[in-house]
């Protein structure tokens, strides 16, 4: 799940995870930017580098959450694939772990995508997949293609060896039919422009684009007759004032209310324009409402219900 900052990417990712966790399914929701956005959303203490159950799905499934920490992921990786217990510590002493996770460009992204790859392929003792689905709260739209594609860069760089094989397997998974990159946006110009650019970038790198999720949709408050009256300038401030007066509100508030109505019309028109741009993107669009009470668990279930189409 990617999206421009401020569009509610983390919320939508969490709602999707809950939606996917129906009927006894197990879903992993992970974040990769060290922001602890999932913990804040579910109002729990900061997530450790461990998979913790954070919610149940609508029909008894389970959602686990994980905040992927690149440093821990690297040590785990070295231990898991190379049994580098002692050498891993030596690497740490030489500042290599720090170098790899904070300084060496790209390695961080490789580790983050690598951990997601590991979780997605992990099997339990009965040889079933540990998770039925993995949802990643991914970096923003402007960086998503480079982030997901980092292993392809790496595969080109490492000509032989385990790194190359690993990087190629990750890219195969990223481009597989079972992977989808969904883009979250709001009906404003810049997020929509970035979404369109993001779709083009992802498509160029053969990364599978899923839905466009239009988040925070405002309720339509202006009826067709009111719109017609406002547009034609036929709204009479005195008559509106009289109506206000009849319900105990100050009549002189009419002018301000009419201004507010005109501004709302203008906003709706801009949104209609942006909706048309998204419709032309060729990707299926799903809309989520702006929930007036803010985001709590109940709100996440409500959004999850609307995201069933993404399954």
């Amino acid at each position: 799940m990617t999206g421009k900052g401020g569009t509610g990417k983390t919320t939508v990712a969490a709602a999707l995870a809950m939606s996917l966790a129906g009927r006894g399914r197990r879903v992993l929701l992970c974040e990769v930017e060290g922001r602890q956005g999932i913990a804040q959303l579910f109002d729990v203490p900061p997530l450790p580098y461990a998979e913790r159950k954070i919610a149940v799905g609508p029909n008894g499934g389970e959602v686990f959450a994980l905040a992927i920490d690149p440093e821990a992921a690297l040590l785990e990786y070295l231990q898991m694939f190379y049994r580098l217990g002692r050498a891993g510590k030596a690497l740490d002493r030489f500042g290599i772990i720090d170098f790899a996770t904070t300084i060496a460009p790209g390695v961080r992204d490789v580790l983050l995508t690598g951990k997601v790859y590991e979780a997605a392929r992990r099997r339990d003792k009965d040889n079933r997949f540990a998770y039925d689905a993995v949802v990643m709260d991914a970096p923003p739209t402007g960086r998503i293609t480079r982030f997901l594609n980092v292993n392809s860069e790496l595969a080109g760089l490492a000509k032989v060896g385990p790194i190359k094989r690993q990087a190629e397997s990750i890219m195969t998974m990223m481009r597989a039919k079972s992977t989808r990159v969904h883009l979250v946006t709001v009906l404003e110009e810049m997020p929509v422009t970035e979404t369109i650019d993001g779709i083009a970038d992802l498509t160029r790198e053969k990364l599978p684009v899923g839905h466009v999720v239009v988040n925070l949709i405002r309720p339509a408050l202006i009826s067709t007759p009111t719109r017609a009256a406002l547009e034609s300038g036929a709204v009479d401030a005195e008559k509106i004032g009289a109506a206000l007066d009849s319900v105990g509100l100050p009549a002189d508030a009419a002018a301000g209310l009419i201004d507010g109505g005109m501004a709302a019309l203008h906003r709706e028109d801009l949104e209609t324009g942006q909706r048309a741009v998204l419709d032309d993107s060729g990707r299926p669009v799903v809309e989520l409402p702006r929930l007036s009470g803010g985001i709590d668990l109940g709100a996440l279930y409500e959004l999850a219900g609307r995201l069933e189409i993404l399954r």
Partner: protein
Amino acid sequence: MSRERPRVVIDNSSRGDRVDVEALLADRGTEIIVCCGSGGVGKTTTSAALALRAAEQGRTVCVLTIDPARRLAQSMGLTELDNTPRPVAGVEGAGSLDAMMLDMKRTFDEVVERHASPEKAQQILQNPFYIALSSSFAGTQEYMAMEKLGQLHAEKQYDLIVVDTPPSRSALDFLDAPERLSSLLDGRFLKLLLMPAKGPARLLSAGLGLVTGALNKVLGAQFLTDLQTFIAAFDTLFGGFRQRAEATFSLLQADETKFVVVAAPEPAAMREASYFVERLAGERMPLAGLVVNRVHSDADDGITTAGAEAASAQLRQRSDADADIAADLLAVRADRLAVSGREDHQRRSFATAHPSVPTVAVPALAADVHDLDGLRQIGDLLVGTP
């Protein structure tokens, strides 16, 4: 139809000090303004608006963006921004405004070309590790932005440089870049990597053998060789890098630099803003204040959310065209009031947690800013001109 404009209520006074943006821009002692904050809060627009206003007040300004989404280009109506500052057309007054977008690879190449012999430069530029590092991997841009900022400042062609940083936590890499680079260069890892290229084998202690063995196993010998060749070739440059990185870091702490934290009145963005404010204080970086963009407000005529909702419901009971219109208008008002109430709460929480941070609220505009007029309007709102 004559009607009195309702008083707009964005309260900039009751929550601690207001950022004196006009004085900040007019002060010739301000040579660098760094705008930071999470993504999607209007940072690029704020940077551009500050830069334009300073230019139109007579200063020689350059605005530098390192955002890959070319948003500055969009908001300034420019179609091409590359690694060279280009004059922005249509700036009024005695000053001037140049804008540039950081081209990571170009900046990196320039550093190599400037500081290495032609032969060595060629060797570095063709190394596969260098090509990947300089052009395609994320994380490099923060280093290069610092490099470019230091460069522009040293050239003294501009008396004010406004920097727009990349969104989210990676903006902190921007702060960390010089420090990290320095510690890397002094670190044992670099020495280790350089060793096979220039050191005798006797230095290879048991511990080192373990490490290079591990690296070979994980990375593959070819990868490690490329990396070593690259680092060895780069060796001569690193001294200069370190010096400049340290100089830039102290420049960020100096009096001529001011940080502006940008946010939107939403929980996530305000949380990030708190994080930035605390972090800047911890690093002794000079903070000018917080800009809260896209604050919603409505006329102050005594109508409350609950009052508007109740009256709207009441008016809908009648079958009367004007009552229906009034009901719709009141529903719009109730919605707006609810929004501004939530935003107000966010701003108050921040002010309570950070009472000493001056703040300025910028009202939401109906449409995105596309041109210089839009930026001027934002500039007016930033300084509080009606």
